C-alpha cells in the first residue's frame, strides 16, 4: 500500500513538525510496516519553475520535424525578468499556457544537466518539461500544461507538481485489511500522534429508496450489502483532475479515464472496491446469485471463463455480466463513449472472494481488499463519494434514487478478562488502560468489574478472539514496552541419543577427510536410470510432487546418491583432483495408507485419528551416503597418491560402526549402482534379527561414466536410522588381563570365492575364549597357490584372564581354529 503523505495529512491533522520518517516509524510500531519512502522530487534540482508561454514560432526542420521557438515568461526566476528563449519539440500547448520550465543549472532525473545550448539555430536556455522527463509517469506525448490557476510565472513548480510530496509504501499484513486504504492509514496515524481525524466515509447520505437502479440479491450470505447509484450526462472526454492523476500515480495505479480513476480513487480513499457499469449497456435489474455449473463469462480482461457453482455473479436480463467483487464482464464495461455510469459498492463474503480469486487465478487490488475484509457499513458512503467526484469532474448529474439492499453483518462482541492483556504480554497494563486502548482502536467496550465486553468496529473484521484484542492493546502501548525475562524451564534432558549419535557420525566422517554436502532431495527417472536401477527396484517407487520445480526431477528422492554424485562431478569439473563427500538426509518411500485426512481444529484429534494421519505419510528414513571419487590420497614428497576405491568406502563404514559401537558384518552382495563384484552389504544385528542397513563398494563402471565421475569411484548408502538403532547404548567396562600374550600366525589356502570374513568367522569360533584378537595380514594369489585359490594369512593373539598360557594350550587353540576353518570353508593349512 502506497500512501502519499499529503493525502494522509488531509485526513489527519498531524503537527507540521512530524517528519515523514517519524510518521512511517510510528506507523511501523503500530503494525503498518514501512517498506520504502518515495520522494519523486529527490532526483530533481532546481530551478524548476512555472512559466507562461508568450510566443511560439513553429520552424520546420530539414529532418522533417517541426520545432517551436518559444519565449517564456519565467518571472524573476532567471535573474533578469526578461522572457526566456526555449526550443521545444512538443505541440500540445499554445501561447498563454502555463508550463513547467527547468532553467539552466537544473538537473532532471537520470543526472540530466540542463544548460543553455545552441540547437536548431537558437540558443535554447532551458527546457519545457514533460511528465516523463520529471519522473512523474510515462506520459511523453507532450509537455505538461498546468491549470490556469497553477501559479504565477517564476513560482517554484515543485509544490505545484506535487514533487515535494512524499509517498510511504507499507507492507500490510493480511489481518490489517483496513490499512489498505487512506482511511485506515490515517486512522492509525491519528492514533499514533493523538491527532484529530476526519473519516472520509463520514458523509451525509440520502435516504435509500426504490427510485434507483433495481437490484435483487438472491444470496445475502454471499453479498450482504449492495449499494447502487447512477450518474448521467458525463462528458466522456472530461479528463481526470491533475491532483487525482497524481495521487493515483503515487499510489501505484495507472490513470485510465475519469470514470475508472474515480472508482480507483474512492477505493484507495475508503478501502471499498467499486465497480462501474456503463449504465446504457445494462439490461434491467441487477441480480446477485451463485453461478450454476457450466455457465461462462468473458471478463473484462478478455478471458472466457467457466464458472463454478461457488462463484458469486452479477446478472442482468442479458445474463451474467460480472464476477461479483472480483472482476466485471466485457459486455457492460465502461468505455470512451460512456456517459451514464451505474456505480456498484457491494460487500462480498471474503471466503467466497478468496476462493473465486484463487480458482480463476485473478488477483486485483479490488480482490485483495474484498477477500481480506472491508468495512461493510460504508457501501452507501463510497458510492456517494463516487457520485460526488463524477459530478464534479465529469460534468454529470446524479440521477435520483439510492438503491441499498441488505444490511451489514454485525460484529460479534468479544468477552475478555481485563487482566488478559497484562497476563499475555507481560506489560503492566491496568484494566482501565486496556479499556482506553481498545476504545482508541475503535472498539466499543463495556466493563463489568474486571470483565470486558468489546465490540470491534466494522472496519476490523479480523478482531474475533480475546487474543486479537490483546494484540491491539499491545501495539497501542508499544511492543518496545515488553520486558525481557528469560524463562526457567524445569530441567531438560539434553540431546536425545539419536541426536548425539548423528553428531558423531558427521564428526567421524569429517575426521576421515569427507566434506558434508546438502543437496536438494528431488529426483526423476533420468537420475535413477543413470544409477542403473532395474525397473522393479523399490527406489524407483517415489513420492511424486504435484508441482515440482523441474519436470526432470518430479519426485522426492529415494536415494541420496544422485545429489552427491552431481556434487562430486561439479567439484571435479571445477578442478578438484578428488573428492570425498557425504550427506545425511531423509529419503521417502510412499505409503499406501493415504490420503491423509484433514480434521477440524475445534478439538484434538483422537489417537486413532492421529495414527491414521501418520500412516498416510511416506516412510522417511534418514539416510547417509558417501561418494569417493578420484584421488583419495594426494601424491607428494612421501610418494605417489592413491585413487579412491571400494576399500575406502567399506573402510569408512567399518570406522563409523566402530565409533558408534555397532557390530557390523560385511558380506558380498550385488546391487545397483555398485560394481556387481565389488559391492558389500552392510549387516547389523545377529541371528534372526539381522538387518541389511545399506551397501558400500565400487560404483559400476557404466554408472561412473553416466554421472561423470572417474572409473572406480566408490560409494556408500545406508539407512542411518537403522544403523543407529544398533548402536551400543551403555558400554560395559572391559576386564583387562595382565598376563602375557601368545601370538600364532596361520596361513590358509581357500577357494577364491570364499570370503575373508567367512574364514575369519570360522577361525574365531574354533579358537574359543582364549582368542583375544584376530587380524588378516596378508592375501596371496599366484602360481604357488594355484589357479582359483588364494592364501589368507591371519595373526591370532591368545591370552587368558588368570594365567600365562602354555605352549600346549596356545597350540591347541590354534589347531581348533584351523580345524573349524577347514571344516567350514574347505581351507587347507599351508
Amino acid at each position: 500500500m502506497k500512501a502519499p503523505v499529503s493525502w494522509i495529512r488531509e485526513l489527519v491533522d498531524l503537527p507540521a513538525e512530524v517528519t515523514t520518517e517519524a510518521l512511517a516509524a510510528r506507523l511501523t510500531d503500530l503494525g503498518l510496516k514501512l517498506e520504502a519512502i518515495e520522494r519523486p522530487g529527490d532526483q530533481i534540482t532546481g530551478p524548476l519553475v512555472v512559466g507562461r508561454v508568450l510566443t511560439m514560432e513553429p520552424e520546420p526542420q530539414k529532418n522533417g520535424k517541426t520545432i517551436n521557438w518559444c519565449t517564456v515568461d519565467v518571472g524573476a526566476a532567471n535573474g533578469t525578468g526578461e522572457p526566456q528563449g526555449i526550443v521545444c519539440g512538443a505541440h500540445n500547448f499554445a501561447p498563454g499556457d502555463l508550463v513547467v520550465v527547468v532553467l539552466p543549472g537544473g538537473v532532471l532525473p537520470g543526472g540530466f544537466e540542463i544548460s543553455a545550448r545552441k540547437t536548431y539555430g537558437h540558443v535554447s536556455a532551458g527546457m519545457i518539461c514533460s511528465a516523463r522527463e520529471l519522473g512523474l509517469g510515462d506520459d511523453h506525448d507532450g509537455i505538461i500544461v498546468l491549470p490556469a490557476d497553477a501559479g504565477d510565472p517564476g513560482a517554484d513548480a515543485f509544490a505545484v507538481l506535487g514533487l515535494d510530496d512524499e509517498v510511504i509504501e507499507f507492507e500490510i499484513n493480511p489481518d490489517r485489511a483496513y490499512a489498505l486504504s487512506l482511511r485506515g492509514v490515517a486512522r492509525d496515524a491519528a492514533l499514533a500522534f493523538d491527532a484529530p481525524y476526519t473519516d472520509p466515509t463520514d458523509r451525509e447520505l440520502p435516504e435509500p429508496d426504490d427510485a434507483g437502479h433495481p437490484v435483487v440479491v438472491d444470496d445475502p450470505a454471499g453479498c450482504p450489502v449492495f449499494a447502487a447509484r447512477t450518474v448521467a450526462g458525463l462528458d466522456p472526454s472530461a479528463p481526470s483532475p491533475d491532483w487525482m492523476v497524481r495521487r493515483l500515480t503515487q499510489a501505484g495505479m495507472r490513470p485510465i479515464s475519469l470514470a475508472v480513476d474515480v472508482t480507483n480513487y474512492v477505493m484507495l480513499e475508503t478501502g471499498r472496491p467499486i465497480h462501474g457499469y456503463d449504465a446504457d449497456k445494462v439490461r434491467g435489474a441487477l441480480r446477485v446469485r451463485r453461478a450454476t455449473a457450466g455457465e461462462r463469462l468473458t471478463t473484462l480482461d478478455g478471458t472466457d471463463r467457466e464458472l463454478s457453482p461457488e462463484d458469486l455473479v452479477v446478472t442482468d436480463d442479458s445474463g451474467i455480466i460480472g464476477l461479483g467483487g472480483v472482476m466485471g464482464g466485457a459486455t457492460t464495461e465502461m468505455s470512451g463513449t460512456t456517459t451514464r455510469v451505474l456505480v456498484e459498492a457491494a460487500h462480498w463474503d471474503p471466503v467466497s472472494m478468496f476462493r473465486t480469486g484463487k480458482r480463476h487465478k485473478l488477483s486485483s487490488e479490488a480482490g485483495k481488499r474484498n477477500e481480506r475484509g472491508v468495512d461493510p457499513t460504508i457501501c452507501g458512503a463510497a458510492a456517494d463519494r463516487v457520485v460526488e467526484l463524477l459530478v464534479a469532474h465529469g460534468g454529470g448529474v446524479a440521477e435520483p434514487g439510492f438503491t441499498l439492499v441488505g444490511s451489514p453483518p454485525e460484529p460479534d462482541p468479544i468477552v475478555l478478562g481485563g487482566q488478559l492483556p497484562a497476563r499475555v504480554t507481560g506489560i503492566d497494563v491496568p484494566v482501565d488502560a486496556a479499556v482506553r486502548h481498545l476504545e482508541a482502536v475503535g472498539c466499543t467496550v463495556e466493563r463489568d468489574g474486571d470483565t470486558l465486553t468489546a465490540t470491534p468496529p466494522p472496519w476490523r473484521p479480523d478482531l474475533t478472539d480475546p487474543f486479537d484484542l490483546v494484540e491491539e492493546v499491545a501495539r497501542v502501548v508499544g511492543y518496545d514496552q515488553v520486558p525481557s525475562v528469560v524463562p526457567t524451564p524445569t530441567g531438560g534432558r539434553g540431546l536425545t541419543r539419536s541426536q548425539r549419535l548423528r553428531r558423531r557420525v558427521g564428526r567421524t566422517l569429517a575426521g576421515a577427510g569427507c566434506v558434508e554436502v546438502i543437496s536438494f532431495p528431488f529426483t526423476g527417472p533420468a537420475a535413477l536410470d543413470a544409477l542403473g536401477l532395474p525397473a522393479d527396484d523399490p527406489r524407483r517407487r517415489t513420492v511424486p510432487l504435484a508441482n515440482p520445480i523441474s519436470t526432470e526431477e518430479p519426485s522426492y528422492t529415494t536415494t541420496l546418491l544422485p545429489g552427491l554424485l552431481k556434487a562430486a562431478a561439479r567439484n571435479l569439473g571445477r578442478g578438484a583432483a578428488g573428492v570425498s563427500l557425504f550427506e545425511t538426509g531423509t529419503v521417502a518411500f510412499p505409503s499406501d495408507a493415504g490420503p491423509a485426512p484433514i480434521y477440524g481444529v475445534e478439538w484434538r484429534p483422537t489417537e486413532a485419528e492421529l495414527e491414521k494421519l501418520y500412516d498416510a505419510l511416506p516412510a522417511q528414513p534418514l539416510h547417509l551416503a558417501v561418494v569417493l571419487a578420484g584421488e583419495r590420497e594426494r601424491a607428494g614428497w612421501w610418494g605417489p597418491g592413491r585413487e579412491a576405491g571400494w576399500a575406502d568406502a567399506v573402510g569408512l563404514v567399518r570406522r563409523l560402526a566402530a565409533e558408534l559401537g555397532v557390530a557390523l558384518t560385511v558380506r558380498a552382495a550385488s546391487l545397483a549402482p555398485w560394481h556387481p563384484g565389488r559391492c558389500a552389504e552392510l549387516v547389523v544385528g545377529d541371528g534372526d534379527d539381522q538387518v541389511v542397513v545399506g551397501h558400500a563398494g565400487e560404483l559400476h563402471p557404466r554408472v561412473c561414466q553416466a554421472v561423470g565421475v572417474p572409473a572406480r569411484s566408490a560409494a556408500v548408502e545406508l539407512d542411518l536410522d537403522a544403523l543407529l538403532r544398533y548402536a551400543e547404548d551403555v558400554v560395559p567396562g572391559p576386564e583387562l588381563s595382565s598376563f602375557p600374550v601368545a601370538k600364532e600366525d596361520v596361513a590358509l589356502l581357500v577357494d577364491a570365492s570364499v570370503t575373508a570374513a567367512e574364514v575369519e568367522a570360522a577361525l574365531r569360533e574354533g579358537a574359543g575364549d582364549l582368542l583375544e584378537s584376530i587380524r588378516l595380514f596378508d592375501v596371496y594369489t599366484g602360481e604357488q597357490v594355484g589357479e582359483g585359490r588364494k592364501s589368507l594369512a591371519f595373526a591370532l593373539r591368545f591370552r587368558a584372564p588368570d594365567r600365562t598360557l602354555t605352549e600346549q594350550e596356545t597350540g591347541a587353540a590354534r589347531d581348533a581354529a584351523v580345524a573349524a576353518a577347514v571344516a567350514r570353508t574347505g581351507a587347507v593349512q599351508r
Partner: protein
Amino acid sequence: MSGPNTDYDPVEVTPLKPEEVEAARDAALAAIAGAADLEALKQVRIDHAGDRSALALANREIGALPPQARKEAGQRIGQARGAVTQALAARQAVLEAEHEERMLAEETVDVTLPTDRVPAGARHPLTTGSELIADIFVAMGWEVAEGPVIEAEWLNFDALNLGPDHPARTMQDTFWTDPPESGVVLRTHTSPVQARTMLTRTPPIYVVCPGRVFRTDEYDATHSPVFHQVEGLAIDEGITMAHLKGTLDHFATAMFGEGITTRFRPSYFPFTEPSAEVDLRCFVCRGVDSQDCRTCRGEGWIEWGGCGVVNPRVLTACGVDAERYTGFAFGMGIDRTLMFRHDIEDLRALFEGDVRFTTTFGSEL
C-alpha cells in the same frame, strides 16, 4: 691369579706400590680423556677398567697382603678405581651427548614440508550452525524436537490455524505431493513439529525444532526452494511475551555476542496472537553510524524472524488446555542467519556442494 696369602709374608707386591697405582690411575685417566668417541672409550674401558687392567689386577692382590697392609692398599686402589670409574662415566656421558647431538643433527628434516596426504574433511556450516543453536537452547534447559519433512496438510496448516480459506495459506507457496488431494505436503515451515510436540507431550514444553523446509520459491541469491528454519516453542503456566523477548535476547547474545539484543514490531502470523517481527541489533555496526553498514544496509537492525504468543486456537487443536497454559513460539531462517553471520553473498553457495566453500567452515564448532 695369586692364591690367598694365608701365611704372613710381608712381601711387597709391585702393583700395590703407591706410585704404581697412581701411575696406572693416571694412565687410565689420560686414556679416558683421550678417547675420541664411544668406540674408543669402549676399548679404554677394557684396557683400564677391565678384568685385565692394571688396577683390577692390583685389586686382586690385596687379599694377599698382610692384614695390617690391606686396609691402606685397599683404600688406595679403591680410590684409584673409583676415580677411573667416575671419569669413564663422565666421558661416556659427554661422548653420548656428542653422539646424540650429531645423530639428531644428521636426522634433521624440513618440517615445513606439506603433510596433507588425506585432504581435510568438514561438516556443513548449516549442520554446525544448527548444532550451535540447539546447544544454546539445550543450555537453557530446552530440548530439540524433530519431525518428518513430508508432512500431513492438517499438521502443516489446519492445526496451526491456517484453515483452507486462510489467505496466508496461499502466501506460503507449497509443494504438494501428487495427487494434491493426498493431504500430504512438503512442510513449508518447521511449525508442524511444534504441533506434533504438543500432541504427544504435556506441558511444560520447551523445544526448539531446527530442520529443512520447502517453498516453491525461485532459486536465486537470496531464495531457495529448500531451506532451513529453527523454531522454538514454550508452553507453560504464566508464559508471557516478556519470556519470548527474554529468550530471543538471550539467543541473540549467545549467537552474536554481548550487547546484541532484539526488538519487536507488530506483525501477523495465523498461529500466534499477538504476533511480532523480531529484528536483531546489527552485530557489525551495533546501531552506531549505521549508514555505511553493509550488513544491516543502514538500518541498525537486521530482520531476523517472526514470533508471538501461541494462538489459543492452536493450543486447543493440539490438545493443550488453553485456559491453564499460555505459550510462545518463534522462528527464523538458519540459512539467512548464517548468511549474515558469515557474510555469505549468495545463498546458493550452501547447496552447491563445492568443497572449497564447505572446508572453509571446517573449524566451525
